[in-house]
């Protein structure tokens, strides 16, 4: 079953790439005589054509992180079939379409960002909503990821040591890469060896600290990391992480292909398994709040319309980069499903009767299964390690640390890099203040303040330890962002391309809008009050964010309607 699923996933992705993808490319986007921005506007600085493989590498590295791993772990509460279906269908029909069309609209708009295009096609409100969604996304992602990381560090103590040692490895690699005369491959090799040592070090010297101690450490880490010059830590660390990703994916694929094992967890548990905040959660509309990045991520529209569109060497490469890299990410999520689906129970070992049948499994998966394995990341890494160690005979404990560190490292990257993005947005959002109150403006745009505010709110949320509440909120913001992008490209198809094909973007867009809006309303009414009861401060914060996002979401819908109407006239 496990092997079959991998092969099946590969076939689906290949078939859709060559049929649906090509259809989008040929029929909807079509051809244009105008050259791509990287050639027409080539300036040797920002606009430079890049080889498709190089661009793919960059694009994929930017979109693949901890997101496509954590979501599927939680979604397995509904059973592996509903989870994998959303990953696959969401991926080929919504997520990859979203990424590809965002890339192409940006290409046709001289490499301008999706936010700019949204403003142009939908009006000013869309641009502002976009900014706010990103800000909320950033705060919530810090909250969710910090909680997940601290959880992982507690349940897999070796991973924290490994991570700290990786920082040292990154510092050394930084010197080798940027200052020494060593060839690139040699510095990299030394870096990889050091990385292996740091994982071994994690194996030898696990650090045992409490959850809240880790949260405090993470807070200071975020602030400090954003002040250190990038070439010292951030850049070499990110570079090292890329090897963790390659290794993790490659080994995962090989092991999964070899596994030939049936799934131990139920294919389907119930429509309303207990997922978010321990409450019974309806699969529809809540699923996009759980599986975001592996199926659809609004954040990708920003990546696609950032540097990728400025470096695309020909429009033909767009499908490979936009559609292709999203499929690859979906594939990563598939590996997660396979690892836990087939090896989760083995990893868990003895378990209570709480997981005895499908219905009970659905009710108790998060608390008894994921919880007993040590949280979302630990659940994945232990299952994954079980799979890899039994197939490829690599030490189990070693693989647990590698896998947890892989996910934690990416999540940590998120923490310090989102902080930079947040700083930018805070400055941007504060702009109107400049006229009202220059003192306030100066306060908010101060380098330190702008970076402490989002980190502070994020960490405040993480303090509650409730990542199953925070994760859906983050995903919700992310999906709303995707919905803006999808609506934007729909209007683009309608106005600038062929009206006949409007529905290929509009249907997923509207479907997503309805689903996410429904899910967020459900979340706000049923989940937030419970959160407020246990953690008033954080509960209100999340509640306010939800309400604002919902309002902006409706504003957006009206912008779209009037934008279509204007075109009719």
């Amino acid at each position, binding site marked *: 079953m496990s092997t079959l699923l991998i092969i099946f996933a590969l076939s689906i992705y290949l078939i859709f790439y060559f049929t649906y993808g090509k259809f989008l490319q040929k029929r909807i986007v079509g051809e244009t005589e105008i050259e791509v921005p990287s050639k027409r506007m*080539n*300036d*040797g600085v920002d606009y430079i054509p890049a080889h498709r493989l190089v661009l793919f590498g960059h694009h994929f590295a930017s979109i693949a992180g901890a997101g496509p791993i954590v979501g599927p772990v939680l979604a397995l509460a509904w059973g592996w079939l509903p989870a994998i279906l959303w990953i696959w269908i969401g991926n080929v029909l919504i997520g990859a379409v979203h990424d590809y069309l965002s890339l192409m609209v940006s290409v046709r708009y001289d490499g301008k960002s999706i936010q700019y295009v949204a403003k142009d096609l939908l009006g000013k409100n869309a641009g502002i909503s976009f900014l706010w969604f990103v800000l909320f996304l950033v705060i919530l992602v810090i909250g969710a990821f910090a909680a997940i990381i601290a959880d992982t560090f507690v349940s897999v103590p070796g991973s924290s040591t490994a991570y700290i040692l990786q920082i040292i490895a990154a510092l050394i690699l930084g010197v080798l*890469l*940027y*200052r*020494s005369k060593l060839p*690139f491959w040699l510095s990299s090799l030394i870096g990889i060896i050091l990385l292996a040592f740091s994982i071994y070090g994690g194996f030898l010297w696990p650090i045992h600290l409490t959850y809240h101690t880790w949260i405090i450490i993470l807070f200071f880490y975020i602030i400090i990391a954003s002040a250190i010059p990038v*070439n010292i830590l951030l850049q070499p660390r990110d570079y090292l992480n890329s090897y963790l990703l390659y290794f993790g994916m490659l080994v995962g694929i090989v092991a999964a292909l070899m596994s030939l094992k049936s799934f131990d967890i139920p294919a389907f548990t119930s429509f309303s398994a207990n997922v978010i905040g321990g409450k019974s959660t309806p699969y529809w509309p809540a699923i996009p709040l759980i599986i975001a990045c592996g199926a659809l991520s609004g954040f990708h529209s920003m990546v696609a319309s950032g540097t990728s569109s400025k470096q695309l060497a020909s429009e033909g490469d767009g499908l490979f980069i936009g559609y292709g890299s999203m499929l690859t990410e979906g594939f990563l999520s598939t590996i997660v499903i396979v690892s836990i689906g087939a090896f989760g129970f083995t990893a868990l070992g003895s378990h209570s009767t709480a997981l005895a049948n499908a219905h009970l499994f659905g009710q108790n998966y998060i608390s008894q299964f994921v919880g007993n394995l040590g949280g979302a990341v630990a659940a994945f890494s232990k299952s994954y390690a079980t799979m890899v160690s039994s197939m490829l005979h690599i030490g189990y404990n070693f693989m647990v640390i590698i896998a947890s560190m892989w996910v934690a490292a990416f999540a940590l990257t998120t923490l310090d890099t989102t902080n930079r993005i947040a700083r930018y947005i805070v400055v941007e959002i504060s702009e109107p203040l400049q006229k009202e109150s220059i003192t306030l403006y100066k306060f908010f745009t101060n380098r330190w303040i702008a970076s402490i505010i989002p980190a502070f709110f994020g960490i405040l949320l993480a303090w509650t330890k409730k990542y199953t509440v925070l994760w859906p909120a983050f995903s919700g913001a992310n999906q709303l962002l995707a919905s803006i992008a999808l609506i934007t490209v729909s209007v683009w198809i309608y106005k600038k391309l062929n009206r006949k094909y409007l529905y290929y973007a509009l249907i997923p867009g509207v479907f997503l809008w309805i689903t996410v809006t429904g899910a967020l309303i459900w979340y706000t009414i049923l989940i937030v009050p419970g959160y407020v009861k246990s953690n008033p401060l954080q509960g209100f914060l999340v509640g306010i964010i939800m309400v604002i996002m919902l309002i902006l979401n409706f504003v957006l819908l009206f912008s779209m309607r009037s934008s279509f109407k204007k075109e009719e006239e």
Partner: protein
Amino acid sequence: MKYIFFMGKGGVGKSTLSSLIAYKLAKRGEKTVLISLDFAHNLGDIFNMKIGNKGVRLEEHLDIFEPDIDRWVEEYLRNTRVLIKENYKYVSVFNLDNMLNLMKNSPGIEEYAILHLLYEKTKALADMDYLVVDMPPTALALRIFALPFITREWLKTLLKLRKEILVKRERIANVHGKEKFDFAVDEHEDKVYRNLKEQEEENAFLLKLIQGANIIPVTLPVQLSFKETERILKKLSEFKLNVPFVIVNRVKNDEWKKGCVCIEDKEVKTFDDFEREIKFQDFDNIDSEILQL
């Protein structure tokens, strides 16, 4: 070489005084250069001959120059444009033309032109004993003296930032190899860095020149002129420049002293009515004073 700058309000007799002193120094056997940095040149009128940019050797020891500042500015802008066209691959020159036109009229270009001319002349005539400079009217003259100080601060900032850029480029080039990018990595290769260094060198030279120079304000024995001289002295002391004394020109009798409170702390040299006494031998005391500086 010693430098003597005459400055003051228009019409106080800077040109005549500087001509007089240059002439007397030359007569004493000091190799002397006299430069007018005023737009309204009138050395030619004083010596009754055409002088111009190339200069004239008047006596055995006296060279006089009247550089054409406007023409220099125009030439300088033309050269800049040519350099841009030579060096730019991507940017259309249209925009830059626009920009250069803007710059032609932007404040500061004249001050720079004057300083640069002074730099060139001084460098070329390094073996002379005295350089006597006839400065333009007060406002411009003060801006000229201030410019090297301001420039020094800006160059410091820019060089620091540029170094930061080069370090970042070096990090990148260390990974990718230098060939991959068309930016310069090395301090010696980077034309911007080199240019900044050249500017810094020129500016340091000018600063040293100005800081070592004797600046002699010239004033008339009237309230308005005194007030202005007061401002000049204040400004020059802000930059810690040497002002050995102030010359009060066209004094008929002692009555000027009443209005002179403001410049009391400076020794004041007086002259009889300038129009009447225009005989060089009457100024014996002044050139020996200057020789003592």
